[in-house]
């Protein structure tokens, strides 16, 4: 890559930036090494040095000598505890190149922050304490770095002074790590013995380890190959925003993920598949006759086509794949575990869709690389799953493009980023199984019955009165000549769901099946009454998402726990209190009350019969039951 500097820009060599991260086990000296690099690369300024001297005396771990770790551990909690909690980004330059370094935490509990740093890095500097050798966390970080697409690593064997600068120790650790590297496909490894606190082999060759003949760390970083700018690839432009300042201009803004664009190029808009040509390209400085990744541009097209945020503009002759089911590798980033069957928001490029994990194939023991059967992923777990989206999206496998194959999973309630994923490949299954369009549809079937098909979803604690009320509603509807069906929690568990228990993931699957059965019944034109505890909001939301607006009515049968427990019709609460029933809702498993149910029945105020009457009236008011 050659760049001619423009006025105001520095020398051509400085146009290049290497992004790397430091990782490895806790206390291996990652922050110290970076601090040392910053110090030796003359990045530190006088007042920063003065602050460092002051703080080294106050907080430092080196008996008053400069503690370089304090330069990067910027959070109070980090400085007090002498550990790194969150990823820090630091910038420095040598006469040869610029660097952005992500200093990432070594503690296993902060692995998610290490993954964050790895997602944008080109190279990993993996530290090992020479006294301890390759540890679990070393392997874990090496594996995660490789997983996130980092192909080159520097193994920095630190604290060599504490093993008497032993070449044999260094060689043993190098061989250990190389063996693990080979198993995870990390072939490009340079090993280097260092003393981060003293600077040996950091910027200068160390006189104390003359047996090491390779370059010092900084030289390795200066010479490491830079990532391909992907300019030769076919065009991929995720549309961020439609720019419509006036009727004569309709531009599609986005950052080019791969490839180049020129006016006149034939493009296809995915996932829809319509084609057009690029008319104009607006770059940051005006009209362009060539745009290249990773430029942020605004395109206009030669013809009126419907393009919106989340669409992918691609080279027409070489489009990206489109699919709605994938195999993906997930790294779980949140304390609340990933459950099979639960629906999350998935953001890939500029597209956000709903994605359901079904099924989880296995998780990976990062130390042994063993595949283990799993029903959930806990914080920091890595697993492989199948993902089912609510609509098709355009993508590339992660191995081809980080930008179009990497995604995050977002919790729909908290909006937090709970998982990171890499698309491995699309499942062809989704292309082969098409929904069969039938001539007789639900409207026709429902009209024959003088009703509008819908689901009435009764949720509430065990013993709240759901089944009693549902039974009365069904009787009243039957008396009107309506066609109904009542799905009752207990009854369904005798048959369809008898393989499921009461763990959190089984409850999710239980609800998923009921929701799908209800959907088929609504399709059959029925008024479906569902009487299920269904304790989790996210599953009720998943059920609701299967239906059209106005087809799903959530009814919260609201009975306080104390009252349900007092009634205890089936004696279950007594059993649960005695510890004979595990995962009992309200006792040792949570019930998440609805926040926006269509109806709330307060059973402390209303008898079952009165509640049923109210529901029947509600159905009339919502034109579910049409006058005969």
């Amino acid at each position, binding site marked *: 890559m050659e760049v001619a500097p423009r006025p105001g820009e520095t020398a051509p060599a400085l146009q290049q930036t290497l992004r790397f991260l430091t990782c490895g086990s806790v206390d291996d000296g990652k922050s110290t090494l970076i601090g040392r690099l910053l110090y030796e690369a003359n990045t530190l*300024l006088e007042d920063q040095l003065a602050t460092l001297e002051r703080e080294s005396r106050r907080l430092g771990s080196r008996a008053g000598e400069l503690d370089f770790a304090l330069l990067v551990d910027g959070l109070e909690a980090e400085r007090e505890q002498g550990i790194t909690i969150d*990823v820090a980004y630091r910038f420095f330059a040598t006469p040869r190149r*610029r660097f952005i370094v992500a200093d990432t935490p070594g503690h296993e509990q902060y692995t998610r*922050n290490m993954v964050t740093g790895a997602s944008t890095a080109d190279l990993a500097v993996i530290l090992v304490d020479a006294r301890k050798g390759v540890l679990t966390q070393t392997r874990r970080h090496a594996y995660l770095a490789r997983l996130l697409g980092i192909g080159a690593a520097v193994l920095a064997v630190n604290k060599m002074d504490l093993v008497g600068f032993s070449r044999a120790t260094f060689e043993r650790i190098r061989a250990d790590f190389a063996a693990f590297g080979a198993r995870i496909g990390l072939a490009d490894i340079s090993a280097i013995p260092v003393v981060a606190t003293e600077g040996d082999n950091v910027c200068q060759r160390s006189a104390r380890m003359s047996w090491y003949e390779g370059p010092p760390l900084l030289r390795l970083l200066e010479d490491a190959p830079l990532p391909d*700018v992907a300019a030769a690839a076919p065009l991929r432009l995720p549309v961020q925003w439609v*720019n419509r*300042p006036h009727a004569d201009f309709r*531009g599609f803004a986005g950052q080019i993920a791969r490839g180049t664009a020129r006016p006149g190029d034939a493009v296809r808009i995915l996932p829809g598949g319509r084609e057009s040509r690029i008319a104009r390209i607006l770059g940051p400085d005006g009209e362009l006759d060539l745009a290249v990744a*990773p430029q942020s541009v605004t395109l206009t097209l030669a013809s009126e086509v419907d393009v919106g945020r989340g669409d992918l503009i691609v080279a027409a002759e070489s489009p990206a794949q489109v699919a709605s089911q994938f195999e993906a590798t997930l790294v779980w980033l949140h304390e609340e575990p990933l459950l099979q069957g639960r629906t999350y928001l998935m953001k890939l490029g500029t597209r956000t869709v709903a994605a359901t994990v079904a099924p989880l194939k296995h998780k990976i023991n990062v130390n042994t690389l063993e595949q283990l059967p799993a029903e959930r992923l806990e914080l920091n777990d890595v697993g492989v799953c199948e993902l089912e989206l609510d609509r098709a999206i355009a993508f590339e496998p992660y191995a081809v493009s980080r930008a179009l194959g990497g995604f995050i999973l977002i919790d729909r309630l908290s909006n937090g*980023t709970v998982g990171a994923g890499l698309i491995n490949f699309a499942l062809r299954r989704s292309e082969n199984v098409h929904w069969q369009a039938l001539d007789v549809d639900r409207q026709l079937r429902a009209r024959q019955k003088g009703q509008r098909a819908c689901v009435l979803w009764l949720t509430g604690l065990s013993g709240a009165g759901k089944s009693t009320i549902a039974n009365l509603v069904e009787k009243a509807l039957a008396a009107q000549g309506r066609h109904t069906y009542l799905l009752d929690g207990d009854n369904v568990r005798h048959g369809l769901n008898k393989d499921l228990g009461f763990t959190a993931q089984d409850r999710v699957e239980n609800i998923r099946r009921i929701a799908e059965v209800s959907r088929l019944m609504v399709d059959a034109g029925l008024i479906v009454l569902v009487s299920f505890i269904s304790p989790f909001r996210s599953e009720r939301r998943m059920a609701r998402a299967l239906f059209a607006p106005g087809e799903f009515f959530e009814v919260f049968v609201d009975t306080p726990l104390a009252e349900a427990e007092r009634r205890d019709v089936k004696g279950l609460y007594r059993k649960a209190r005695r510890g004979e029933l595990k995962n009992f809702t309200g006792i040792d498993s949570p019930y998440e009350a609805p926040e926006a149910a269509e109806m709330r029945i307060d059973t402390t105020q209303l008898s079952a019969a009165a509640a049923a009457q109210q529901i029947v009236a509600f159905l009339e008011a919502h034109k579910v039951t049409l006058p005969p």
Partner: protein
Amino acid sequence: MPHARSGDQQRVVGLSHLERLEAESLHILREVLAECERPVLLYSVGKDSAVLLHLALKAFAPAALPFPLLHIDTTWKFRAMYAFRDAVVRRHRLSLLVHVNQDGLARGISPISHGSQLHTDVMKTVALRQALDAHGFDAAFGGARRDEEQSRAKERVVSLRSPQHRWDPRQQRPELWALYNARHRPGETVRVFPLSNWTELDVWEYILRERIEVPELYFAAPRPVVERDGMLIMVDDERLPLRPGEVPQRRRVRFRTLGCYPLTGAIESEADTVPAIIREMLASRSSERRGRAIDHDGAASMERKKQEGYF
């Protein structure tokens, strides 16, 4: 600027360092506009704000800037900053909101009588929270950079704030690749830092390259200053009480950062053009935040201020 060489269609020249930074910043600005309801650009009149505004104008061109500017005015900025701000707003036909903490003003809070810590808290941090709440903004762009300070180096590009505007450094959302998650619940807001990966040098080189106007205070000129607590403080108006024995002297000085004038130290300098500033910076051995009183108010002061809602 990339271009294909004649006769060799496949060899495309890559982007320069500044062009890559620019592309990333435009991407961030557009993502947040697309995902949030009511963004606002926090404009503090300094060089970082100037670059941020320049990038925002580019990100949405040819459309007009799709959100207003918000200036949290402590009433103690340099006079030249107010003049510059109003000129910029007129030139680009921007919508500018100015917010002063009226309660603080009524209580007579000033950097001189109450010290930098209380003044900053009341007139900047509290004022910002008031303004965000009053207008219902759910996303605020700021010009902070990770190279400025250690706790900044830890912050996400898109950083969630609680309904009380607090930052929880231990519960930051993982931010992978260029996937920014700006989703938030009602009442929560996000602070967004499109210049996260820029350095001070990048900012000046970009100002030079793009010919961006910045306040004259950045350029060396003879100015009346007093030496106080190791800093050169400019006597910008009559509100600065002179201590016994203090006589303003005209010295050739400039400012590396701009804030409230009684809290902002000048440096002696001959640099009166952008290239001269860049040369001076490359040779300099002190950081830009040295001239800021508020950063010296105790270790980890920035982190605490940020937790409370400071930018």
